[in-house]
Each structure stands twice: as structure tokens, then as C-alpha cells.
């Protein structure tokens, strides 16, 4: 049978349920899902904010006159693009396709906004993408988005200063704390703990083995304060208490200044950070290197991811099969991936179609180092079992508020996680969801 898509408020679940809902939901506010007839010309709306995205879109339009993609570049300031997407879903005029980050996929699932791509044979493209990134958009047995890019993490550092001060590149977090102390002796700082950077804290908890969200049957589980996360919190809490790191926000004006002057000598960043350092501290060219993330246990290889997006098909789309074809092409066809890399998006989610050299446009800045290898290796060792919950943006905000408070009045970061754990459970309840504290049953 041909899969029937759901109406606006209908089901994104199994195909049978979807068909039923489509029948029920195709009233005045429902809409039709169709297969494109041969030769029929259609236009699909696509919202994205990737710089340079217009190039692959133009290439597609050149070769696919029947399925024209109408690109709308949206502004990604403070998550406003998602608010608009949610509002558009509510109003029934969501785009056909949109770029959304991995972490917000579940929030759109709550609105029944995403097409179950498995119903259109989406699963057969799995092998074209990095495994854990594909897995990020799998909920239940269905995949809801095609991965676009990711941000495997690493440690950017001023090798010249580390060498001059005879500080070894830290391999473990214990060594990292020692290095922080040593750097401080020279009047500089190793890093800043940015209270409002929830993404990075989540990534570090992820690396440590934390599992913030999960499911148990029909219930969401929340464990912001699980043991690995508390360990990460304690670690940074101590560094802040000992005044070994700054507490200014990262990737903001003051931080850029510190990066330029060498007041801050390293950064726990992600693959996309090369452009950021190069552009903001051009005078430090040649002095930087990238290294792997420090480990909690020597010799381990646990990695983390910070950022990354998908291309998702929205349930308002009338021609999901064509939308899926475009999403897959955009993110895995070599000619498209090349153009995306050129435009400067994150790390490709596609496993082939480019060479490491393509990813190293800024090698001189890193003293000729093949720095992308660090991130490629990191990308392979990211734990695939991490799942995002339906209120991640709120969670980041709550973490930010609580960390600000804790830094202001000197309480331990442990209490932050406990507090946010409680708040997050309330947030999920407010969304009308079943929720409990603790690990998911399928953890492992």
C-alpha cells in the first residue's frame, strides 16, 4: 500500500495508525499526502540557516526541474527559528522541509510535526551516514530526520604557550586540572566555564557516560543528576572554586579578546570551531593545535558531540517521498556535500563523498597539522546510546540560570544538577507527558 500521511494533528506513528488518522484528520484543517505523478511539477519549501546552502539547492534545482526547492533562509538567533517552526506547525503552514538540530527532534515529535521517514523507505539510506548520527533521529522503530552535520569535540590549544611553559597536552581530566593550575601560574587561564553554554556541558556529561533522557515503556525518564554527570559537575565546580578557570561566557566578545591575547590558552570546542578561531584570532595563526578530548580513565576513548543538524520532512508536506529524496541527496550526494563543506557547515554526516583534505581548509592556522583527523576519529567514538528529550532548549536555559546563580553565590555545581533535574521533570509534566526520574530501562 502507499503510505498515507497524517493530517496536522494526527499520528506520526505506525503506518496503520497514520492511515486511520489521515482519514479522520483530513477535514478542513487536514491536508492531502500524494505521490507525485510522472511529469508533475511541484515546489517544496525548505527552511535552513546553513551559510552557503543556496549553492547545493541551486544545483538540485538545475537537475530536478520537476521538484523545485524553494529555499527560505531563516534567522537562527536564540532558537527563534524553532519557535517559528512550532508556530507554523500549529497554524498548519509549516515548510515541507527544514533544518533542525538533533537535540530538538523530540520537541517536534511532540507536535507530530515530523514525517516518519521509515514509512517511505528512509531506512535504506542508513549506511550512507555515520551510525550514531543516524541513530540520533531514531525514535521507536522509525527515523524522523536525515542527518546533515555534527560537531565531534576536541581540545584546541595554544601549542606555543603550552610548549613554552612546559605543559604537556592533557590526556586525562586529572592532567587537565593540573594543566589548568600550571597555566594559571603564568597568569593565563586554560578555559572558561560558560554558565549559559548548556550544549557543551551536556556534551561533556555525554562523554562521561551520562544519559540524561530515556524512555521506559510509555514514560520519559530524566536523569540530569546521574553519577557521570555529577562527576563532571564536581570537576568543574572545583576548578571554579580554585579559581583555575574563568567564568565568562565563551564565544562572546570578551572571550574573543582573551583568545586573541592568549589570556585563555585552550578551548574545549568542536570540529566547526576551526573557522571561529581562525576568523577571530587571525594573529595567532600557526600557534594552535587540536587534540583529543581528555579522558576520565587513561587509555579510554570516549568522545563527545557538540551541535549538529538534520534535515527533517514536516507533516504538512504533500509530497514526502520527493522531500525525502532531496534530504538524502543534500546530505549524502558528493557534489552536495562538497558545496556544503565549502560554505562552511559542520562536520559531514555522510560517510563518503569527500576527503579529509576538504575539511582542512585552515591547516596553516594549525601549523600544518592534519587537525580534521582528530575530529574524524572523535566522531567514530561518540557513544550512540545518548538520547535527547523533548524539552532540551528549556533544559539549557534552566542549566544556564542555575549555573549563573551558583557561580554568583558560590554553591557547588552538584546542586545545580539536582535542581534542574527537578525542574525538568516538572517541565515534561507541563507538556502533558508521563515522566519519572531515573535511568531508562534500555540503558546500556
Amino acid at each position, binding site marked *: 500500500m502507499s503510505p498515507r500521511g497524517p493530517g496536522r494533528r494526527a499520528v506520526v506513528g505506525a503506518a496503520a495508525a497514520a492511515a486511520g488518522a489521515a482519514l479522520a484528520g483530513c477535514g478542513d484543517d487536514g491536508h492531502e499526502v500524494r505521490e507525485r505523478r510522472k511529469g508533475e511539477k511541484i515546489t517544496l519549501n525548505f527552511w535552513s540557516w546553513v551559510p552557503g546552502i543556496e549553492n547545493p539547492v541551486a544545483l538540485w534545482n538545475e537537475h530536478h526541474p520537476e521538484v523545485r526547492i524553494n529555499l527560505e533562509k531563516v*534567522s537562527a538567533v536564540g532558537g527563534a527559528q524553532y519557535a517559528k517552526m512550532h508556530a507554523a506547525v500549529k497554524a498548519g503552514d509549516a515548510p515541507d522541509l527544514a533544518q533542525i538540530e538533533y537535540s530538538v527532534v523530540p520537541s517536534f515529535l511532540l507536535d507530530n510535526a515530523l514525517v516518519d521517514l521509515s514509512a517511505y523507505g528512509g531506512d535504506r539510506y542508513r549506511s550512507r551516514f555515520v551510525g550514531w548520527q543516524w541513530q540520533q533521529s531514531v525514535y521507536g522503530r522509525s527515523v524522523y530526520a536525515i542527518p546533515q552535520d555534527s560537531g565531534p569535540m576536541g581540545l584546541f590549544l595554544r601549542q606555543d604557550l603550552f610548549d613554552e611553559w612546559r605543559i604537556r597536552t592533557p590526556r586525562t581530566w586529572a592532567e587537565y586540572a593540573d594543566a589548568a593550575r600550571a597555566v594559571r601560574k603564568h597568569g593565563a587561564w586554560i578555559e572558561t566555564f560558560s554558565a549559559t553554554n548548556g550544549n557543551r556541558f551536556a556534551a561533556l556529561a555525554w562523554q562521561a557516560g551520562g544519559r540524561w533522557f530515556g524512555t521506559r515503556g510509555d514514560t520519559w525518564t530524566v536523569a540530569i543528576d546521574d553519577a557521570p554527570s555529577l562527576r563532571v559537575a564536581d570537576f568543574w565546580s572545583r576548578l571554579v572554586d580554585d579559581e583555575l578557570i574563568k567564568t565568562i561566557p565563551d564565544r562572546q566578545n570578551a572571550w574573543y579578546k582573551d583568545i586573541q591575547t592568549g589570556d585563555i590558552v585552550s578551548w574545549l570546542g568542536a570540529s*566547526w570551531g576551526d573557522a571561529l578561531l581562525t576568523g577571530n584570532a*587571525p594573529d595567532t595563526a600557526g600557534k594552535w593545535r587540536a587534540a583529543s578530548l581528555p579522558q576520565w580513565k587513561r587509555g579510554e576513548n570516549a568522545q563527545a558531540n557538540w551541535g549538529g543538524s538534520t534535515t527533517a520532512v514536516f507533516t504538512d508536506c504533500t509530497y514526502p517521498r520527493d522531500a525525502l529524496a532531496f534530504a538524502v541527496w543534500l546530505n549524502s550526494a558528493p557534489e552536495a556535500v562538497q558545496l556544503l563543506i565549502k560554505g*562552511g557547515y559542520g562536520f559531514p554526516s555522510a560517510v563518503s563523498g569527500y576527503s579529509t583534505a576538504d575539511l582542512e581548509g585552515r591547516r596553516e592556522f594549525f601549523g600544518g597539522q592534519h587537525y580534521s583527523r582528530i575530529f574524524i576519529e572523535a566522531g567514530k567514538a561518540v557513544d550512540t546510546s545518548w538520547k535527547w528529550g523533548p524539552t532540551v532548549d528549556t533544559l539549557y536555559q534552566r542549566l544556564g540560570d542555575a549555573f549563573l546563580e551558583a557561580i554568583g553565590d558560590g554553591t557547588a555545581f552538584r546542586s545545580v544538577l539536582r535542581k534542574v533535574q527537578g525542574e525538568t521533570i516538572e517541565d515534561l509534566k507541563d507538556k502533558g507527558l508521563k515522566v519519572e526520574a531515573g535511568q531508562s530501562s534500555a540503558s546500556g
Partner: protein
Amino acid sequence: MSQQPPLRHRIITLSLLSVAAIYFLVPVYWLTVSATKDTGDLFGTFGFWFANPHPVDYLHDVLTYDDGIYVTWMLNSLLYAGVGALAATLLSAAAGYALAKFVFRGREAIFNVILAGVLIPGTALALPLYLLFSEVGLANTYWAVLVPSVVSPFGVYLCRIYASAAVPDSLLEAARIDGAGETRIFGTVVLRLMSPALVTVFLFQFVHIWNNFFLPLVMLNDSDLYPIQLGLVGWQGYADRAPELYQYTVGGAFMSVIPLMVLMGVLQRYWRTGLAEGSVKT
């Protein structure tokens, strides 16, 4: 004694005004200096002095980045503010005139409701308005920003004050006796008499629309429809991925101030005939 105040007073006055002018102009000066810097110098050099200035190159970069999207934004801003303010002025003039010069039941009630409209916070209106506009297919179009912009409760307030003072009843009666229709009276006599107030309403509404961030933020998705400040905030928001955008944001902000300066210079002489002038003329 002459009309001139004593010299001592004039010096004190002038120096106080100068200090105030420094306060208001220092950030503008900073903006001017910074518009000549690249991203590295923006963060790395003293803010109040030039470093390796290439103003023409940098401003050219701003204008041509992303296929000249900046120019599109600028034109959009001018369109929203110009057309919106013009329509708002006409609507306010008509409504203010009606409220001032006609006696009818519910007049004060209507006026009070309009005034209360001033008190409603933008965030309270934006999202429901977006949903309403989406239903009728207006969201993400020029209309989505233009239509709400033509409402100026404050403009109605000003026009009512002004009309009640500056439009003599006797003149209206005379025109009516001559057999002129109400529309014609409004079009020929009233608008002319109210013109000082209308310039003020136009100016304030122009700036109001020009400065409005929230409405376009909520209403527009397509960056081709953005007004200038929404586009600039978008650039700044993406600057952590594409650092040259810091430089473009600052340069773009600098250029966005220019139209307003021109507008104020041109309309300067109309300020003299102030909006409250009519209120004591009677």
C-alpha cells in the same frame, strides 16, 4: 536690556549641552570608528581610535555579502517604515479628526479603548497575531509587517489633540454650507491645517517601525523580507560560525543609521512647528 541672556549664562548653557552631546554621540563615534575595522581589530584594538582603516573596502564587503542581501534589507526597511508610516499617518489623521470634531455616542469609549491599545506589550500581541495571520495566509509576507505597522494609537491621540485645537469649527461649518462633502473637507481643509501634527506622527511612526524588532522577528521567515535590524541580528547570531560577520554587523549598523540621520535633518525644520503648538492656540 537686550533679549540675549548674559554671556555667563550662554557659556554655561553651551557647555552643559556639549557634555550631553558627547554622551549621546560617543557610541555613534565608536560605531563610526569600528565600521572601519575588521573582526580581528574590532576585538583587538582600542575602540576609540582607528586601526588600519579600510572603510570603503569593508563597507563594500557589507553591501555585497551573500549576493547583496544587505541592500535588500535596507530597501525592505525603507518600504516598511515609509509606506507604513504614511498609511499610519493618514489613518490616524482621519480617526483623530473624527474623534475631535464629531459628536457621537461611544466617542469617549472608543478613544479610551484605542489609548489602552498603547499599553499592550508587544510580546502579548506578536504570537497570537502570527497565528491569526497564518490562518489567512499573510504570515511571512510584506503585509505581515506592513498591516500592523499602520496602527498608531499614539498617532490618533496626537491627531485628536491637534485637530480639536487647530481646526476651527467655524471653518468646517462654512465649508459645509458651501456644499462641500465631508471627504472633500477632510482632504482639502483639514489635512492642510493638521499638517504640522501629521509630520510629527509620520516621523515618530517611521522611527517606530524602523526600530521594531519583535514584529518582523515573529512574522518573517524568509530573509529576503527582513528589515535591516533583523538581518543584522541574524548576522551577529551566526558570527560565532563565520567571524567576518562581526565586522559586517558593525559596518551594517553604521550604514543603517544614515537614513535616519538624513530623515531627521530634512524634517528638522518641521519640529519647530511642534505638535502641541495648536493646543494653546485656540
